[in-house]
Every structure is written in C-alpha cells, then in structure tokens.
C-alpha cells in the first residue's frame, strides 16, 4: 500500500482529524498520551481488549438504527464500498475499510438503511438475494461495528478480536507495522464474518500505532531474544528431523496449525511464524499457552521441556514469509475460538463445549465433517456413528479427551484437553458424545470401570 500523507482536518462521521497532530482530540483526558489518543480515535479498543477505550471513536461515530438520523440503503451500500471517494469532503475517513463483498454490503445496507432501496441497492439485492437484514445484523455484530457506532438493535459483540494486552511481549514490531498497513486474517477467515479492517494509516500513524502496541515503530532491525536450540538462520536439519518425528508421532500441533505446509486451520499458520511472533513467545506458548497468553484458546499439550524446546526451535525455523489463512471459507461459519469465547465455555454444557472445542474437526453433529477435517491427514472420529462409539467405554472417551488421540493409540492430531478443560467439562463432553451417537458404553464397562 502506498504511503499516505496527512490531509487537512475534516470531519467524517464526526471524527476530527487535525493536521500535524491528527490524534490530538480536545476531548481526550489530559493524561492520555498521544499513542492512546490515536488508538482511541481509531476505536481499536472497541474490538480488542487490552487497549484504551474507544471513547473518541464512539463520540465521533454517528449513531445508527432506530432513533438515529435515517440513512438511505443506497447510501450505505455505496458508502461501504468506498468510504473515501463517496465522501471526499470528509476524507480521509476514519471509517476503516472492511473489504466487504457486495453481498455483505447489501446485507448491511438492508439492516441499516431506511426507506425503499434505490436502483443501486435494488440491483445488488437481485444479485444477492440471501443478503437480508438478518444477515446484516449478524455482520454488524461480527464486524465489531458496535465498537464505535451505537445501534439500538445491534447484537452483542462476539468478542472475536484477539486481546492485544501484552502485544509487545509477543508480536514482532516489523510484522505489526506491515500488517496494520495491509491487514489480513491471522486466524481462519470469517469467524462469523469478523475481520481486521484497513484503517488506511499514514506512515506517521503506523509509527504511532505500532509503537503503542509493541514499543517499537517496526521500521528497523530487531534483535532476536534467545530461544534454546534456535538460531535466527535456522535449525540444524537433524533437529528438524527430530521435531518432525515428534509432530508425526506424538503432538497435536498439525491438528490446528499449518506446519511446513500441512495442517489444520483452527489456529494461525506457523510457517514463517518467526516473522510474526517473538521467538521467546513461541517457546512460551508451546510450554504453557495459558501463561503466555491468558485466555488463549490453545490447550496446553503436556510435554517435557526438552521436547518443547525442540518444537519451538523447529517452528521458528519454518520458512516464511508468514501468510495468514485464506480469506475465504465458502459456505462455512467458523465458530469463534478465542478471547471471550474461552470464558463462555467455563460451564459444563456439553453441547456448547462440543460446538466450541470439537466441532471444528468432528463436525457440529459429530459427523466427522467439521470445517477443519479436510485439512487433517487422519479423518476425525465420527461421533454420531454408534458402531464407532458403542464399543468404547466412557472412561476411554474421557481419557481420549483428556490425553488426546495419542493415548488411545489413535491420531496424535487430536489434542489433549486435560490441562484445559475441567473434569466436569470432560464428563459433559463424554455425555454429549453419547447424545450424538445415541448409544451407550459397553455393558461390561458400566459398573465402575471393570478393566
């Protein structure tokens, strides 16, 4: 993306931008630094935890929906397609570019607009008949529109944006800068429609935001914190071979992540991960995800420190450049696995737990057809098949969830959840499996686990 220059202060959707100090908002509290001011103006905290509250963005963003000044559907439809040129008098707009598809614009326009659609929207509706107001409402929530705009009928924000608390301890400034400049998905695209929008930041703004997040502006070279066994120019091939063997025989990394070109899409790809993440964070994440990143959706896989070091060094050696997952996942609605979603699964509700932690691979109905299944080298177990589950005692199901597929002599791609879910939650999942298969454990196993 070409560098932009700061333009004279104008108002778009009520957001003031000042020449030379575009983030200097009169309404900011006096002790707030300039970095926080820009973040507040951009509204980052509307979606991401760990950042300043998006008060400025909220103050500037117009209210929408019932009770707010009406907007025509055509205006919304066309504005969302190109906020800058549609309102050149207020450019550069702080309204970010969500790179919406036409269908998404139609849906949002039908949700937000009033009155009869004009010719542009009408034609687009004809091409996108499924993009109704209900879809628009869901998108409004998923995109985090409510982070800045008020809307009386908006759904609760889904909490899909990752927390940026402690981002300086894990993200490479250089990568953050580049990504802010050209945002793309980090995790699987379209977690219900969510995505990081393009804020069209200037070079100066990139300096500020990158520094605010990571403590450095991302322009210069960066030292590599030490990670045992890892060297910035790679990892010895013999160690790589050892790590590959661990991945093939023992650990579940490829169940969720692409590693060396293969693997699932539940978590971010790891090829080129050393470009995106700080090396010691990668090591800490493998050793203890919950400690490295509180609220992480990644279950800790028990392993000896030595093997964690081997894996960290190997992952950091994987060739880049780091690329996010494909931005399109046609026909799939991928459930959220992160941030606030983790908190919602603390209860032992088997169906919720299953939808959150199992369905990606095993399918929402246990058919083995989750959206991640195609990325796996071993087909996920079909939990809805009584012929598969009825020979297995409940304790075996529990052990498999607790210790992963490996402890059952099955695919190691199935992670161990024993250090992530509570015993009650695992029990609830076992019960959910029995619901899905509509079957019982073998009779001999139902009496206290005889054998």
């Amino acid at each position: 993306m070409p560098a932009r220059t700061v333009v004279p202060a104008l108002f778009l959707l009520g957001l003031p931008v000042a020449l030379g100090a575009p983030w200097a908002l009169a309404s900011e509290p006096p002790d707030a630094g300039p970095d926080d001011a820009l973040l507040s103006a951009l509204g980052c905290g509307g979606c991401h935890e760990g950042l300043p509250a998006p008060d400025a963005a909220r103050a500037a963003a117009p209210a929408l929906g019932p009770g707010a000044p009406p907007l025509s559907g055509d205006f919304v439809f066309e504005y969302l397609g190109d906020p800058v040129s549609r309102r050149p008098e207020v450019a550069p707009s702080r309204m970010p570019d969500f790179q919406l598809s036409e269908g998404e614009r139609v849906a949002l326009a039908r949700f937000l607009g009033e009155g009869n659609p004009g010719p542009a929207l009408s034609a687009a509706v004809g091409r996108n008949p499924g993009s109704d107001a209900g879809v628009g409402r869901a998108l409004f929530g998923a995109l985090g529109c409510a982070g800045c705009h008020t809307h009386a009928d908006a759904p609760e924000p889904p909490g899909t944006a990752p927390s940026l608390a402690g981002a300086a301890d894990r993200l490479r400034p250089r990568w953050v800068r580049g990504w802010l400049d050209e945002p793309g998905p980090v995790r699987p695209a379209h977690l219900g429609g969510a995505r990081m929008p393009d804020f069209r930041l200037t070079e100066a703004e990139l300096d500020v935001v990158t520094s605010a997040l990571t403590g450095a502006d991302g322009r210069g070279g960066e030292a590599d914190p030490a990670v045992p066994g890892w060297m910035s120019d790679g990892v010895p091939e013999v160690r790589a071979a050892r790590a590959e063997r661990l991945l093939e025989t023992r650990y579940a990394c490829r169940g969720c992540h692409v590693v060396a070109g293969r693997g699932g899409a539940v978590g971010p790809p790891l090829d080129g991960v050393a470009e995106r993440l700080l090396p010691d964070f990668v090591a800490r994440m493998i050793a203890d995800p919950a400690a490295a990143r509180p609220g992480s959706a990644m279950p800790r896989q028990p392993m000896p420190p030595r093997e964690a070091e081997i894996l960290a060094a190997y992952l950091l050696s994987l060739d880049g450049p780091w690329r996010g997952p494909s931005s399109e996942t046609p026909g799939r609605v991928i459930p959220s696995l992160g941030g606030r979603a983790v908190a919602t699964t603390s209860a032992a509700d088997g169906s919720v737990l299953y939808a959150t932690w199992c369905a990606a691979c095993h399918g929402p109905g246990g058919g083995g057809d989750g959206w991640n299944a195609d990325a796996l080298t071993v087909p996920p177990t079909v939990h809805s098949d009584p012929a598969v589950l009825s020979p297995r005692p409940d304790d075996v199901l529990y052990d498999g969830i607790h210790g992963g597929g490996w402890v059952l002599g099955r695919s190691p791609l199935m992670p161990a959840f024993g250090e992530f879910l509570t015993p009650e939650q695992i029990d609830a999942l076992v019960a959910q499996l029995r619901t899905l298969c509509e079957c019982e454990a073998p009779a001999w196993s139902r009496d206290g686990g005889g054998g």
Partner: protein
Amino acid sequence: MRRLAGAGLAVVLVLAGCGDGGGSADQGGGPVALAAFPSAPSPPPPAASPDDFVGASACADCHADQYAAWSRSTHGRAGGAPSPDLLRAPFDGTPIVFADGVVIPERRGAETRFVVRQNGHDELVYTVDGVVGGGHMIGGGTQGFVTRMADGTVRFLPFDWSVTGAVWFCNTGSRLDEGWDPVTPEMALADCGDWPPVRPLGVVDRFGNCQGCHGSRIVVDDVPGEGYATTWTTLAVDCESCHGPGADHVASADAGTLASELGLSPLTGLGKDASLETCFACHALKDVVREGYLPGAPLAAYYALKFPMLGDEPYRADLRVRTFAYQGTHLGSQCYLDGPMDCVSCHEPHGQGYQDTNKRPLDSPFDDGQCLSCHASKARDVSAHTFHAPESEGSRCVSCHMPYLQHPEVGDGVPFARSDHTIPVPRPALDVEAGGASACGLCHADLSTTELQAAADAWWGELRPQREAIRGLRSGDAAAAALLHPGVVDPLAQFQGLTRFLSALPPDAPLDAAARERLEALAADPDLDVRALALATLHWSAGDDPTVRRLLVQALEADARGVLRDRQVLALGFLGDRYRDAGDWTRGLAGYQKALQLRPGDPALLSAAGQLYTRAGDLLNAVAAHRRSVEADGGRPMAWVNLGVALGASGDAAGARAAYERAVALNPHEAIAWNNLGNLALRAEDYAGAVDAYGRAVAADPGLAQAHFNLGRALIFLERYAEALPHARRAVEFDPDHEGSRQMLRDLEGVVGG
C-alpha cells in the same frame, strides 16, 4: 543360536533333477509349472563394526547430565570387572558347602576367585574376570560371575548370588531341572547345570547360547587355529547399547558439523514399535535369524522376537510368562495394542528411574502416575474403580495390573519376580486356571480363589472380555477357527496360535479351505513374524499348490531386505529338526527341502540334513550333504565333525580322521572332534594316541561325560588305573545313568581303592 537348521536335500534334489527350487504339480490335466522362488537378496552389509563404538566416556563431556544419570543407573552398574564397589556377593572366604566339596569365594589382593575343593579331585581355581548383574531388581536381584577359558570363551561360573535372598544358588536347569536352587549341603556340584562352566558370554552358536546383553558389544569371534576371541566394551550396558555406534557422532562433533551430520539416529520421538525395538534388543526373548548384531542395526534383520514360541511355550495362553522371559510380553498388553505404550512411557532411559507418558519424573515403579497420565478417568474417584481405600496398596495401579510374579522356570528357591508386562485385568479364577498366580491372591493369601472371584464379580460384574485370539488359545481347540486370527491386532497371540496350528499340521495332510483362507490372510498381516510364519505354514502344507506358490513367490519378491525369507527358513528348518529328532525322516527331510528351496546351498541347512541322513542310516546322502556343507563354508568345526561322523559310519576311517583333524585345526578346543579322534585311535588300538586325544577332549570340555569314560577306558588299556579313576568319577558325575561308567568306577575303586 537356536535353530538354524539346514537341509541336505541338496542330494535328493540333485538325484530328483529338480534342484532349482522350483517344481511342478499335477493338477488334473498334467503337470503345472510352479512359479520359481526369487533369489535371495544379498545380505545387508553390517550396519557397524565394533570399531565404530567409542564407549561411554566419550559421551560424558557433552552429555554430562545424561552420563551422570546413567552412571548411577542399573544399566550403568549392571556389571564390570570385579571390584569391591560392584561385588554384592560375599567373597570373604566363607565356604559354599556342597555334598561333594566346598567352594571358597575369596579375594586375594586384586584377584577375585572361586577355589573349588571337590572330593576325589585336584583343587581348581576359577578367577572371576567379570561380574554380571548388580542385584538391583526389586523382585529379586542376582549377581553372576564369568571366567575366561582356555578356548577363548568367557563362561558363566555356576555360583550365583541372590542379593535379595542373600544366598548362593545355582541354575540346575540342564541337570536336576529344578530351576534355581539355593546351594545346600545336600546338593552335588554336578547338580548345577553350569558345572563345569559351559555357558559362554556372547553369542556362540557352538554352545547354543545368547548372553550378548549382559554387557556392551560382547563379541565372540572365531579364531581359526585357536578357538575364540571374546571382547567387550564393558559389562555394564552403556550409551551405545541403545544409541548405536557413536564414532561418527564424535567425529562430527569434533568437526563442528553436528548440525548436518548427527552421526547417529536420535531416539527422540520414535513411534512405539521403533522405540520398543531399541529395548527389545535385550529385553525380549528372541531367535537369531542372522548373526552379528550390533546396536543401531535394524533388529528385525538379526532377531525374530516371536519365534521362541515355535517349539517352545515361554508364554501362557494369556501371554503371561510360563517359563522364563523378559518384558516381551508387553506386546500382549492392551496398553500397547490399543495405546501408545512403549518402554519409555514409564522407564526413564538414562537413569532407569520412572516417569509418566509425558516424561514427568515419578518416584518409584509403584507410582500411579505411570498409568494415570493416560487413564486420567481412573483418577477422578479412585475407590470407585479399585474398591479399596484410596491410599491403600489395593488402590495402587500396579498392585492389580502389574503384579510382581515369580518366573515359573526359576522355581521358588530364589526370589526372581518381575512385574507382569501384559498389564492384565485381574481375573482370579482364570488366572489360576491358566497356571499362574492371581494378583488378588498375592495380597489376600487368606482367601480362596473362589472367594476372590466372588469379590471380583460383586465389585466389577462383567469384566472386559478377553481378546478373541486369547480366547481361542485358552479354548484348547486345535481348529483353525480357534488358532488363526487374521484381521485382529494381537501379534503375540496370533503367533502363538500359528505355532500351535503348525505343530499339529503334517506336511502331507490336506489343508482345508477355511484354514487356508485364514493363513492367506495372515500372510498379509502387518506383523513381520506373523506374516512369515503364516507363509511358512502355507509353504509347509501347500507349497506345491500353484496358487499358494504364487503367493509365496510374491511375498518374497516384495521382501527386499530378506527378513521374511530368513524367518521362513527358520520355521521350515525348525520343522526339519523337529521331525528329524522324532525319527520321522521323511517329514524332517521335507522341512529341510522346503527351507532349501528358499535358500539353496545353505551350509547350515545342508549340515542339518546330513545329520538326518546319518541318523536314518543313509550314509551316502549324509556324506554328500556334509561335503556340500563344508564346500559352502569350510570354517565351521562342527560341520567337519559331522562329516567325519558320516564318513566314519561309512567305514571311511581315514576320511573321518581327516575331517576331525580339519575341525581341530580350526578349533583346537573342539572337544567332540578330539573325542572322535580318540575313538579312531582306540579302534586302531593306539591307546596312547587315544589317551592323548581324549585328554584334549576333557580339557576342552570337562563336562563331556562320554570323553571321560573313553579316557578311562584308554587308560585302563594302558593299565594306568589310578589315572583312570578320576575320569570314571567325572563320567558318573556328569552322566550318572550311564551303566558303563558306573561299572568302570566300581571296578577302578576296587583296584585302586576309593
């Protein structure tokens, strides 16, 4: 080495004009050409030589933590030179009292030795050149001792020490057959199977032994003209015993190129079977399929782990140890079959401590963490599973699932219990019925099996059903449906079923369609040993059927390493031996013939067949087979001895003498060759020559009763009665049922005085 039988068929084949291993079958319309067996692939070059090993000290600098842990471990302290630090037995001069003498274990300066004072014989001194075992094992630790012999072998002395039982004992296996007995004043020295020392350290096929695991790189080389040369790196089990040869690794480290050339195969992240292979090189029964194994080589190319079941029953039908075994029964555990369990799931390999499957250290072999890291469900409410108080012994996983069981072949005299690595579900009645102890009964000795079973029924109700293959074995049914189980994953039980089926299968009996179908399915089993024995069974029973022949040929064509062929030869050669030893010459010959079809001209097979011919009285073919054997490999002294026997029986004394002389030229300590040379001299009334030859025989093998008897006879001919007397005593000592020896002893005692 067990069973490398061979066949002399060569001669029959030549006479029959079908020596190419092919053949034909009459299928109604006339002979149908059988597919020819493909040639055997060239043997793989040795993976390493002893020079490729560097010893543990070379590892210490770079791998200090692992080295320190190993130094304190049972492997690191498994044996060595007799030092005060290592010796657990009391070499304090306290006599070990036998009925016919005393043995004094003592230290004289730096020398550790046994002084044997046996009634009627000169004093003998055996220097202890090595200590085997540190007495570390919880279920009963022992320590044995070896001494270097004149022929270059290093042999076990018969006096072992039980650290746990604090008693001297000996293995009576080949004499009284009472297992391991503590020495008592009622026991004669010759009740000990190793008196005089006969078991060498290291693999020496002449003695049918396998003690290569009581140390590191124990190598016994044939030294033509001298006998043997025995070397080892250490009598401990060192780093390279598991990691393989380290010379390349050290060189790479020195050159700074470890990043690209590790120089050895890392053991991290091995799958369960590859991991087990590392440990099963020692911790499992095995048959030799190829000599010359050194650590780091592919185990399957050298050893077949299930073949000891062929012709023997080391395991019960429920796969637990029936006689004496190591931890190979782990292959029969549900944890292996249905899970990922290998040795390092519980055993920390450097220090031999304990760990869970995630390699978290554990306190002891009784720690529940070994099991609960997989079976987390059982940790939620322990008593709901165990029906015992949570902190009681009855709630320890291993108390019920890995009880320490005395190895039956050892007997009850010396503690030698090992934890049951089949990791079974306790079934009190079935366990006792199968011939073993019930885990429940080990604690609750006051309760009858019936009472224990009633408690189990009340607590657990129906137990997990036993596996299909085990149920078949337990049934006692000899039908294919009970013994042959294709499609299951239970290799130890499948193999045992195959051995039973094969044992009851004469080669000329038709194979019914159901059995054949099962065998053909088993011939594609993932397990190499199972596959090989199924193929050998098909070869044995229907090898001339064109369809079966094609299957056999296809299997061998896919056998690039030759490991399948090696095993089939082993099985067919075993059948040859078995029927030969039973006096069924036709079937014995059939076994060798079929083995030779796979390995034409094999000298060991030819030699075995020659022995069959000799015993059958077909001396023409016997001589021919033995000649072909020594032409194929003239470096085996016993092959020359066997040729000499056949020639001697044919009346060719000169030829026999020449053959024996070739044998003793190769190994001047070949006792049987000397004995037979003595026989030739005796027949020629060359009594002095006979005395000389027999004397060499008993010097080489003091336990050879026949040679003592013969020497006594020769000395009597020379009227050297006093000299003959001790040999008469030895003859009776080692073969008390030999009436001739007993008569000789009575006569000599009458002449010389007792």
